């Protein structure tokens, strides 16, 4: 930059190519120019030595124009390339957005915020649970707008088509339990007690938990993704604007379907799991099927089934509510759909296991 009688002249030379890093120097250059320019002066340009340029040059001129406006200096742009002027004219003369520096929060603050967020989420799920129960009662009294057809669709989706995967998982779990039990118990000559181990573990815990986990991955995630997609398409808005309660139309059939099918799937899972255990036990140990069956019947009381059955009802409600809730709270972009499906699966699985722990503690306290 050089100074002439009435005005300053900024000499721009060389290449101004953005990707070559000239943008990094803009701030310093503009500051330097403005420091030398007097209040209200005119700034002209000398571009004789200007090489190739692209948006790097425009960025510099834009910053300069903004800074000059702040000092009431006037730019004499006539000497600049016409193409550059055209581009410059596209830019509004407002101050460029200063980027807000990211606030660095401490680990403890972030942990606290996370905890609070989780807590609010939990409360919201509880509210949704309460809401769903109210609407379910409404439905029983015939005051609901739930469509019977939707419930049937959801039931088929959550029930019938889940049978194969529930069967595979439970058969394998039963087989694994029997295998581990057989290896250990054989050393004590207590072979036949494999039936006790497999029976109690499956009926009390594993069948309910494994089935719930499978359904969280399969159905909970699908609920969340479906509802989140509807959110993105404004379909939920359209429901609300039409006055169709989202509770009745979307959530209730899903929660009812999963709450109804989960215990049935549990019973089915138990049966298949026991079969898997028996298959492995018979293969590995010298036990007849009849003996194994009798041993299982003696070991597993009806109350164990009641326990597992009630748990799976709770798991069904939890997985469905978590899926619907997370779907409803999703944003409106495509990636939000993926995120909400992932979150529904994670929340469903962790929730099921945590709830199972609560059940275990309660059962222990009640001597069940």
């Amino acid at each position, binding site marked *: 930059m050089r100074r002439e009688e009435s005005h300053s002249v900024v000499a721009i030379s060389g290449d101004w190519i953005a990707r070559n890093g000239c943008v990094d120097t803009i701030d310093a250059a503009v500051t330097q120019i403005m420091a030398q320019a007097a209040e209200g002066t005119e700034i002209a340009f000398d571009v004789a030595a200007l090489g190739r340029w692209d948006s790097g040059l425009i960025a510099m001129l834009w910053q300069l124009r903004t800074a000059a406006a702040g000092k009431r200096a006037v*730019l004499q742009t006539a000497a600049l390339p016409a193409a550059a002027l055209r581009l410059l004219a596209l830019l509004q003369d407002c101050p460029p957005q200063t980027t807000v520096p990211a606030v660095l929060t401490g680990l403890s603050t972030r942990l606290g915020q996370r905890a609070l967020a989780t807590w609010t989420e939990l409360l919201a799920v509880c509210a949704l649970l309460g809401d769903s129960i109210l609407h379910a009662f409404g439905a029983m009294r015939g005051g609901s707008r739930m469509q019977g057809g939707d419930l049937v669709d959801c039931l088929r989706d959550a029930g019938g088509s889940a049978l194969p995967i529930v069967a595979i998982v439970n058969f394998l779990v039963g087989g694994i339990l029997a295998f581990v039990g057989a290896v250990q118990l054989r050393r004590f000559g207590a072979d036949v007690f494999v039936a006790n181990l497999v029976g109690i573990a499956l009926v009390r815990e594993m069948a309910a938990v494994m089935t719930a986990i499978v359904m969280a991955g399969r159905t909970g995630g699908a609920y969340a993704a*479906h509802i989140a997609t509807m959110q993105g398409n*404004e379909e939920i808005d359209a429901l609300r604007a039409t006055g169709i309660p989202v509770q009745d139309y979307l959530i209730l059939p899903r929660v009812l379907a999963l709450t109804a099918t989960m215990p049935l799937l549990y019973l089915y899972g138990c049966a298949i799991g026991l079969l898997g255990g028996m298959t492995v036990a018979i293969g590995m140990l010298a036990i007849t099927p009849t003996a194994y069956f009798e041993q299982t019947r003696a070991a597993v009381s009806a109350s164990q089934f009641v326990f597992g059955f009630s748990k799976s009802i709770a798991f069904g409600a939890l997985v469905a509510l978590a899926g619907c809730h997370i779907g409803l709270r999703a944003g409106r972009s495509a990636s939000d759909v993926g995120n909400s499906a992932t979150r529904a699966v994670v929340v469903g699985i962790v929730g099921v296991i945590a709830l199972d722990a609560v059940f275990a503690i309660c059962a222990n306290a009640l001597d069940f």
Partner: protein
Amino acid sequence: MAAKSDPAMLEVAGLTLAFGEHVIQHDVSFDVKRGSIFAIMGGSGCGKSTLLKSLIGLLRPVAGTVRVLGEDYWAASGVRRADLGRGFGVLFQSGALWSSLTVAENVALPMRMFTSLDEASIDLLVRLKLAMVGLDADGGRMPAELSGGMRKRAGLARALALDPEVLFFDEPSAGLDPVTSRRMDNLILDLREGFGATIIIVSHELASLFAIADDGIFLDAGTRTPIAHGAPSVLRDTCGTPVVRAFMHRGASGEARHSGTNDDARN
């Protein structure tokens, strides 16, 4: 009903709309007379759809009131709001068809929910509404199988499902070919004449607006507030505000603005 002093169908006063702390529009006030066609205009992203949302119960305004036939809409309970909303028909910008239902089921669902008509009557009405928008042959298709313009028309048929008193259209003819677009205009006029519906329309189709709208409001993105009121054709001829003129004359004076900036830079 018209015997009394006939309150406006919709009275909006001092409305402020915001997403979180981000104010989209403030001080929005206007009345919509029963049976009129009211245009909401403004550049893209100025908050037209957002304003519609606050009129149909999807976004609670931060300040101000919306009165529907004299009744404060947002002060009413959720149940009452839903009742009032039953008299509204909404065509969303994207169509917003329920993607898991066929086109015909989309139109039928509001009727199934809110009327006690039997299946045969619902079927007849659905065919009628679909025929009105020229989709008689497509009732059995899924929304995903329709083109953008067809989705809009199906959305319109759904908005008409309950014969609403007030119709809200968000850019009904955007993305339609000129012929279909003209047909949409005629349809809107027919709906007004035929059903006596009050229509609130967001649109950039100036030719349509000049032809059909009785009154309107122009939202400005820069100042985040309405800067002109009146029928679009009147605004075109008399409004002196540059932004409005530029809009009404298809950005003709937008060119002038650009050269103006050039001059500024040169001076």
